[in-house]
């Protein structure tokens, strides 16, 4: 009897000790994360999860970049930072919602992408399906790197981030190298999508209607490439005459072929003058259970996200009438004037009318304007085609008369006309104004509303930022 008891006690101790060594506990509140030998359902969940990570920062960026690029204001009586920090500075690098933003959510998306890429080889799906997933994931990662680059132009950013948290941090590379890395990722994605069979093993959802097979998703990939190439070109290959008189512009190494690369990429994209201008890829939102609503939707009568008065002032009139540009009318409506901290506007955004409204990632209208830009400057393009593209947008999207730009106009005149169309076509859709004014060296043209500050609110004079600071958590960890 005694022996039996002793045996039982020893067995119990061994069992407890053995159990105590294992601290790996399954989280019962979330689905198992993707790992080696992933099932098709796990791949599906991880792939769709990537879109959820991608959209997390979309509304923040549209609003913040709209303020930085003077598309609008947020006159928020509950948070002074929209009218102090974002307009007068200094940008607070420690806050993800303000100056330190466009960093953490983007790198989380990129990390989530690598979590898939690192194990997709052993997943229980066919080889073409694996390639399709790789191409899709890389394209989304490229978009996230781009979001970082939009906000941090002229800064160095980490690119080689596929490493464990105990390894040394990824080295910072120059902004120019960052864009080159994005080009490489998009091209690698292209190779994978071409070998990706006829369908994805998951559904990318209503944001990718018409782009949800590997072959069609590749057209989206090339559309993003066209934008990347245009951004590279405008900072590297822009004639000095375009930026002359607009202050100093930090130039990149020349990319003489980049404009032509835009045209090549557009031919392989979903670009079409016959398709709807809204056709493209979107970040999807909804008020459904556990889903994320579009935070930019608002009641126009009581809205605090307001368009800048200059949006109305510089809108042209439609052909033969007194009504303003159709693009203006579609995105802005009037409300009673609202003033705060020496700023005032009576223009409410109606670009996102409901919490279910999607935010564009890239759409056909932008592609047509990219073709106009590349046709003007590219060796393989013609200036006549550039003007024709500008007029197509002016007439079909804005209801306006043709442009006064001719093939004999100077580069600078053309760029001003291009920027006008891009302003109204892409207004409040993703920081295009700020990015465009920066890449064409025209930040000094942005309106400074409070050149002497706002003494009543203790705000020093406004300034135009060319970039956001590196997130302070990143900077601290690198010290």
């Amino acid at each position: 009897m005694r022996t039996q008891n002793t045996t039982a006690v020893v067995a119990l101790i061994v069992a407890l000790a053995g159990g105590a060594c294992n601290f790996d506990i399954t989280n019962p509140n979330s689905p198992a994360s993707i790992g080696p030998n992933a099932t098709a359902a796990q791949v599906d969940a991880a792939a769709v999860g990537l879109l959820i990570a991608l959209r997390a920062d979309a509304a923040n960026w549209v609003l913040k970049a709209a303020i930085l690029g003077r598309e609008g204001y947020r006159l928020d009586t509950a948070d002074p930072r929209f009218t102090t920090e974002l307009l007068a500075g200094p940008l607070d690098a420690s806050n993800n919602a303000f100056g330190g933003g466009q960093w953490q959510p983007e790198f989380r998306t990129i990390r989530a992408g690598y979590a898939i890429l690192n194990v997709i080889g052993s997943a229980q799906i066919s080889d073409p399906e694996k390639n399709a997933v790789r191409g899709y994931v890389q394209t989304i990662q490229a978009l996230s790197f781009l979001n970082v680059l939009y906000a941090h132009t002229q800064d160095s950013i980490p690119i080689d981030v596929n490493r464990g948290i105990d390894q040394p941090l990824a080295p910072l590379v120059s902004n120019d190298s960052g864009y080159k890395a994005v080009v490489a990722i998009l091209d690698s994605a292209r190779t994978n999508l071409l070998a990706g069979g006829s369908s994805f093993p998951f559904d990318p959802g209503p944001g990718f209607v018409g782009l949800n097979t590997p072959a069609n998703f590749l057209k989206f990939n090339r559309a993003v490439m066209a934008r990347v190439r245009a951004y590279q070109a405008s900072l590297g290959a822009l004639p000095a005459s375009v930026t002359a008189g607009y202050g100093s512009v930090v130039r990149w190494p020349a990319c003489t072929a980049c404009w032509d690369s835009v045209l090549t990429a557009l031919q392989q994209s979903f670009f079409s003058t016959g398709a709807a201008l809204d056709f493209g890829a979107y970040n999807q939102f909804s008020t459904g259970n556990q889903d994320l609503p579009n935070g930019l939707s608002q009641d126009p009568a009581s809205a605090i996200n307001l368009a800048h008065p200059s949006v109305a002032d510089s809108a042209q009139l439609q052909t033969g009438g007194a009504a303003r540009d159709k693009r203006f009318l579609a995105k802005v409506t009037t409300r009673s004037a609202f003033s705060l901290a020496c700023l005032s506007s009576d223009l409410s955004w109606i670009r996102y009318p409901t919490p279910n409204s999607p935010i564009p990632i890239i759409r056909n209208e932008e592609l047509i304007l990219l073709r106009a830009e590349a046709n003007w400057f590219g060796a393989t393009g013609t200036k006549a085609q550039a003007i024709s593209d500008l007029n197509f947008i002016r007439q079909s999207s804005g209801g306006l008369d043709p442009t006064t730009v001719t093939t004999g106009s100077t580069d600078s005149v053309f760029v001003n006309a291009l920027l006008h169309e891009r302003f109204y076509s892409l207004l409040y859709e993703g920081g295009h104004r700020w990015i465009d004014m920066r890449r064409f060296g025209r930040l000094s043209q942005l309106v400074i509303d409070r050149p002497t500050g706002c003494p009543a609110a203790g705000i020093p004079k406004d300034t135009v930022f060319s970039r956001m600071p590196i997130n302070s958590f990143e900077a601290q960890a690198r010290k």
Partner: protein
Amino acid sequence: MTFYQKRITDLLLLQSLAPSTGFTTRIFNGPGAQMSVRGVEVAAAVSPVRKPDANWIVRAGFSLNRSNVDSLPVPAFNTGGFGTSLGAFRIEQGQSATQIVGSEGHVGDANPDFTASLSSDLNYRRLSLGFSWEWKHGGDLINLTQLLYDAFGNSVDQAPAGNTRISTWAGGCGGTGCTKIYVQDGSYLKLREVTVGYDLPPDIPQHFGMRTARISFSGRNLLRFTPYKGLDPEVSNFGNQAIARGIDVAPFPPNRSFFFSIDVGF
């Protein structure tokens, strides 16, 4: 009377990571990470009167507590607040665990210099009277309520004091911005509670079939003396956390309350 010194080695750390790793925080057992906490607690009770029909007890308490992050094998990291421009808590080697940093650097500490309390209970025949005072000396709060009032021109002292404060916050301290202006001393002295009670003579409750009855009247938070400019120095929007305590963004303050009660025993 208690003196204590506690040294915590191999701390479990909730560390903020470089966001480029794709992760924001990790919990890990930091080898070599050490924090120490020292403090004094004194409690005394005297009973000046102890007679059959009168009893008076006075209690006093005093405590102080200091923490220090002795060594931290990872870079300093923020762990609460809305970013440094609005005051954030930072775990940093050689500093208190509850330090507050602003745009310009170290601006305060949420931990009080000391706290003290004094309470008294007096019973005389059927009457009882009790009160308690609480005193906190030092310990900073981040007064974002005042910042919001100042920023939008709604402060009582807007011109010129509020305007000066908000412009100092935005551009003072040599251009970095001056968070210190809104990190304010949360010292207070409060009359926490006063209670007056009366035990009814036994024949009254017995008349109604009860054994005992007592009526009492009490009030909480009756008096407050504080230099703090917000609604109340005891607020904390994020609850009673170990570190990120005392962030004041238009919270609902502690209320003053009065109670009238009848206790009966069967």
